């Protein structure tokens, strides 16, 4: 029978099934970048390997179903971006007990000993956007009684917690005070917008020296709140380097974002999977939580390096960014 046979290990990669399980659709990167990066690299390294893909839509239960289903379909390696890092422990254990290897992806699984961990550093991301924004804010003058707003990610998302931690690390020691902070339910830009609009009534737009938003969506909501209050927009951070976010940077409305060309991480996960299948130890940059790990450093993007980091590196073509409305601004930054 096809089911149940799980002899695991180093029988060689050829013909193996490898699962790639992503956590949510709230952020676009997983289907736009991570998955293609993973699948093309896998195809390159092991043409007759079979990739399985699933996305858990932020549901722990759904992720568990998808994980079990991958095992039922005979996956030998599972690349897992956990919806919930703690809950994933049980998945890792059950896989490993059946001889299936697990690569933690994007978000770590601290309480389990995974076979490999590959990621951008979410806490590092938080620190990077925080540092950069604080610096920018300090360039101007912080009004007395003024300070920053923090628009964090979803309160039910562990990665958001890591970003938040990084942001606090940057901000708490900076000397710029935090006026208020908010966990954006479901990462929804509308929720961010409403909250920021409330703070504008509360403190006045002129007291808000800057906003650290945890991704481009919530950053966009923040900018819309300032725009519709009729005033000017203070520096606002972002993360993910979405087209919409990059466009706002080009237009001068958003201050920074993070470029994490996830294709690279996806590719690295494929490489690690093939290595594990053939019994080789994947290349590491060190250990995190006791597991061999490869961490990629994300790049902070502002107007200053947008052209070189994004356009010139071919991550997002100028044609996509410089639509009619942004053409003039692009020209100013000499992006074509």
């Amino acid at each position, binding site marked *: 029978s096809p089911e149940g046979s799980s002899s695991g290990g180093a029988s060689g990669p050829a013909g193996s099934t490898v699962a790639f399980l992503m956590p949510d659709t709230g952020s676009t990167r997983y289907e736009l970048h991570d998955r293609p990066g993973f699948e093309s690299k896998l195809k390159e390294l092991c043409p007759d390997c079979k990739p399985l893909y699933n996305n858990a839509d932020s549901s722990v239960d759904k992720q568990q179903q998808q994980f079990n289903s991958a095992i039922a379909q005979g996956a030998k390696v599972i690349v897992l971006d956990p919806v919930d890092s703690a809950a994933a422990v049980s998945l890792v254990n059950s896989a490993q007990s059946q001889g299936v290897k697990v690569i933690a992806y994007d978000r770590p699984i601290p309480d389990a000993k995974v076979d490999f961990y590959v990621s951008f550093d979410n806490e590092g991301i938080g620190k990077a956007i925080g540092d950069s924004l604080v610096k920018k804010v300090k360039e101007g003058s912080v009004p007395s009684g003024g300070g920053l707003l923090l628009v964090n990610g979803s309160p039910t998302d562990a990665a958001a917690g890591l970003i938040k931690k990084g942001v606090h690390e940057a901000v708490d020691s900076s000397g710029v005070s935090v006026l208020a902070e908010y966990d954006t339910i479901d990462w929804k*830009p509308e929720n961010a917008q409403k909250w920021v609009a409330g703070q504008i009534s509360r403190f006045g737009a002129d007291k808000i020296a800057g906003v650290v938003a945890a991704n481009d969506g919530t950053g966009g909501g923040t900018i*819309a709140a300032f725009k519709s209050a009729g005033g000017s927009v203070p520096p606002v951070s972002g993360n993910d380097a979405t087209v919409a976010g990059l466009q706002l940077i080009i237009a001068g409305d958003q201050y920074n974002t993070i470029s994490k060309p996830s294709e690279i991480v996806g590719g690295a996960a494929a490489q690690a999977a093939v290595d594990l299948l053939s019994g080789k130890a994947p290349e590491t940059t060190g250990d995190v939580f006791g597991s061999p790990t490869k961490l990629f450093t994300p790049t902070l993007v502002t107007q200053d390096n947008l052209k070189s980091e994004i356009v010139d590196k071919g991550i997002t073509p100028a044609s996509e960014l410089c639509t009619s409305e942004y053409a003039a601004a692009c020209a100013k930054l000499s992006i074509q």
Partner: protein
Amino acid sequence: MSTNTALDRTDERLSDSSGARGVVSSSLRNIRDGDLGFLPVVIGLVIIAVIFQILNPVFLSSVNLVNLTLDSAAVGVIALGIVFVLLVGEIDLSVGSVSGFSAAITAVLFVRHGLNLGLAVLVACLVACAIGLLYGVLLTKFGMPSFVASLSGLLAFLGLQLAILGDQGSINLPFDSALVQFAQLAFLPAPVSYALGAVFAAGFLLARLGVRRRRTRANLSAPPLGVVVGGAVLLLIALEFVFWYLNRARGVGWMLVFFLILVLVANYAITRTKWGRSLLAVGGNREAARRSGINVSFIYWSAFVLTALLASVGGLLSAGRLASANLSSGTGDVNLNAIAAAVIGGTSLFGGRGSAFSALLGTLVISAIANGLTLLNLESSYRFVITGVVLAVAVGIDSLARRSRASHGRA
């Protein structure tokens, strides 16, 4: 008023005298019996306002109330749509998806394909109408409960929204486009707002006077002139005060005016047309409506179409206000908030009872709570708890009032 008894005042068991005294005595009896119409919800709103004002005095500031009015408009329009399906005793769980899908369609056509904004909006609205019609037909031709049909729709249209937003996931709407301008920055010049208040009040007065004249002529009881004029004057004062207060900040948003006008139109359609009467009849007793010769299928279709259409319009307003259409547009609590708003405002989930104004009041309750919380520094966990508790308290007042009405034998 004629001295002989009005046609509808002859029964000796009626305790109301006519004229101003009758108005007063019947109002008093209504208060005693708990037949207070929208008063309890309004009291709930006042309590919410007092609590939040104490916690943070910014709550009732002009600046914040302007925000509140703008926040309310988009979800209010969707809730208004929900009223129609609830009136016929059905449900649409997919208004969130439809709103997000519409925003996505408009953004893709307008921004990516360079279509004229008006056309893009039209396409989105037509698609929404088709969706509504689909639910209607599934119900009337296949007997599929709207709960399940629209649950399927919730998923399917969310999928389509993701699909057409495609690789970018999020599309910025240009800040200078009409939609964004309308939703973010279009405010009535102060004099225009005052004029509008006057027009509303005058319209109300004329309508009531017309009714009064016709009823008096037909020898039916009619409210005394003083009561009619007094009501209109009160309305005028209230409107002008609200507008004046909002004008102290950014002013009266067009989006608010648009929403109010939609509510008035919907109210007219529900209460003053044959179609509206048919909605209530179908919701109250489908079989009786059918036996009265009402085209029940058409009534269902029209309700579903209107709900979807208004969901679409709400989605467009929301996208305009955010200046972006994205993957999460219309997801999360949009569905539940819209349905809850209608229910909190007093529209029954079981059909046949409700009002366009329920969408207005219910939305204000929900938006006021959400807005009030933005002004407090709270952990997310407490935010959830407080939202839940305040909602329960606000609605509890209304429930108690209704209960007292029921115990006084009123339906």
